[in-house]
């Protein structure tokens, strides 16, 4: 069994990884480039394999460097393909990363006998074992390597966003204005892409190439549902990322399943929950608004109908409740409910079977007609 203190370390790695991924994710979601992280996370495979052949270690800094370079190369490839104007962006991404990934798989298969870089770990990562890979300097035990790598990435991401906040914001929301003002969008773009590559490579070891996309896209997309402010979206997505990581971890341990898998599952569930209940934009809010609008519209129809015939000879006939069924083509049950709503709102008053406009109802009907 895993000792108690290592458990906390694993959890800490999960939280730090989630936070580090959530930050660049915000800009990817806003810039509609989320799938670039998917492409990068697959395409870095040949870089990792080649660097592994050179260094024979899975945790050397050269590995991270080589993989990051491959990631940036992927972005360049995709953009070059797009620039030919022969291939659209989505197809360019869909062409580039499978090809690079294929090269990686072939390389691995050729040398699979003498290395321990197995495909399972590539796609799924091994968060469970991340805390066993201890950084030792002069024999001192300094804690897990992953924690340092992802901690470093977190600090780097925060620093980049703080330093270039204004530029990032401008490039994200109005790239052409940014260009005319003299902030080179290309520079910011590649800076961001390098960060995404580095974060992906760093997280790769812990969560693998596919689930890193959940860490990048999930919290940012969830936060995007909740706020209109960039600052708040950044903070929210880090918080959501951390919540996903903690809940995922707590679910995975008793079930004894891959932690990265449960974190991804929780990410989807949290997104779904927010999608349901978020005020104004959530599914429930949308449904309620639809219902309210339906009744409001029906009531407006009713008072305009009454206003049209008010004071005319046929008014008596037209304001019979029973007449509404035929004139407005309403079902009797529907008409009864509309009348009830209108009575509650004091738009109309009822005398026997006759409906009369109140002063309030008359004003509203007139206003609506003028509009």
């Amino acid at each position, binding site marked *: 069994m895993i000792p108690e203190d290592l458990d906390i370390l694993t959890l800490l790695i999960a939280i730090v990884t989630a936070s580090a991924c959530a930050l660049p994710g915000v800009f*990817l*979601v806003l810039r*509609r*480039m*989320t*799938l670039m*992280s*998917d492409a990068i996370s*697959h395409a870095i495979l040949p870089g990792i394999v080649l660097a592994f052949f050179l260094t024979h270690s899975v945790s050397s800094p050269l590995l991270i460097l080589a993989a990051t370079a491959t990631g940036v190369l992927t972005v360049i490839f995709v953009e070059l393909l797009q620039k*030919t104007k*022969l*291939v*659209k*962006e*989505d*197809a360019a*991404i*869909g*062409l580039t990363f*499978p*090809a690079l*990934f*294929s*090269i990686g*798989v*072939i390389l691995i*298969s*050729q040398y699979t006998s003498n290395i321990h870089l197995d*495909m399972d770990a590539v*796609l*799924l990562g091994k968060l469970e074992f991340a805390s066993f890979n201890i950084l030792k300097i002069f024999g001192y035990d300094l804690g897990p390597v992953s924690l340092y790598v992802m901690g470093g990435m977190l600090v780097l991401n925060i620093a980049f966003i703080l330093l270039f906040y204004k530029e990032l914001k401008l490039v994200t929301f109005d790239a052409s204005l940014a260009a005319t003002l003299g902030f080179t969008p290309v520079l910011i773009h590649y800076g961001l892409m390098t960060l995404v590559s580095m974060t992906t490579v760093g997280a790769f070891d812990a969560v693998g190439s*596919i*689930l*890193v*996309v*959940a860490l*990048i*896209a*999930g919290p940012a*997309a969830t936060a*995007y*549902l909740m706020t209109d402010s960039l600052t708040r979206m950044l903070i929210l997505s880090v918080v959501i990322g951390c919540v996903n990581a903690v809940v995922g971890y707590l679910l*995975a341990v008793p*079930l*004894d*399943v*891959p932690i*990265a*898998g*449960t*974190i*991804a*599952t929780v*990410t*989807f569930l949290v*997104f779904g929950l927010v*999608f349901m209940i978020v005020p104004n*934009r959530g*599914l429930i809010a*949308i449904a309620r608004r639809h219902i309210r609008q339906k009744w409001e519209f029906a009531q407006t129809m009713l008072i305009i109908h009454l206003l049209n015939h008010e004071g005319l000879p046929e008014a008596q006939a037209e304001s019979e409740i029973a007449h509404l069924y035929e004139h407005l083509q309403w079902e009797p049950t529907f008409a009864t409910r509309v009348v009830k709503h209108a009575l509650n709102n004091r738009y109309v008053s009822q005398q026997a079977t006759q409906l009369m406009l109140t002063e309030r109802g008359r004003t509203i009907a007139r206003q609506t007609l003028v509009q």
Partner: protein
Amino acid sequence: MEHFYFLTRFDYTLMIVTSGAALLGTVSGALGTYAVLRRQSLLGDVISHAALPGIAIAFLLTGSKTPLLLVLGAAIAGWLGALIILSIVRLTRIKYDSAFGLVLSTFFGFGMVLLSLIQRSGNANQAGLDDFIFGQAATILKRDVLTIGILGGIALIIMLIFWKELKLLIFDEGFAASIGLPIRALDILLTSLLVIAIVIGLQAVGAVLMSAMLVAPAVAARQWTDRLNLMVILAACFGAFAGVSGTIISSPIRIPTGPTIILCATVMVGISIAFAPNRGLLWNSIKQRRNRRSLKIATGSLIGATAAKNRMKENDTRRS
């Protein structure tokens, strides 16, 4: 000599694998055309990953590895994923890319959780479920080829039946809606056809590489023609060719078949982009150079003409 031997004795297993890959390439090439033209190339990537929990649940429920059952599970999950994406995009301000990324990774993660539960349950039958992630083209059996052929054939026939409607959907959705075509239903139909094309290929080339089988042949075909019917036929041929050549190249030198097929398809894209008439890079640069030259001649003669005119004017003024 060895190569010669290999070519003459085209052995049975290789023949099965090759025909499976060829069928797969044909179906995914033809249907991928629609995904690429609608700018939803990455839908393949999403569906193939989202299919994983479906495969796991199908196995958990039935305990069998019958291809048809697993394909059905994969199809349901992939279809559900695609449907969730459509509704996220329709109901929120989240765009396709984020919805794709979210569904792809989280469905896959859930599938991994289920697979690890299956693996721990100690069911001896579970070996080989992993193939759906990485693909194992070399283990294609005759019954797999049958599944691919029948389901793929059905998908292609449906595509032909709704040819006109689908064509309208991808090129002018607004017009299609205005003449009363059921856009949402057609959208779901097209997505379902793509789901079929993807899930039948999962075991052969794997989730990660299946998306390329959908994209690459179509992109290559796009370079050679502007007509939909030609593009679909070309993409199907390119897909089949990639399947066959990838299998034949990978078999004697013992490298994984799936990735080799993808690389073959990628090479075909490269050749098409470089050399296709009218659109290709080479053609374009020649055209550009010719345009520049004719522009130079035109401007040259223009300058000459203006100069001559000025001279005449000068002469006129001098004379008067």
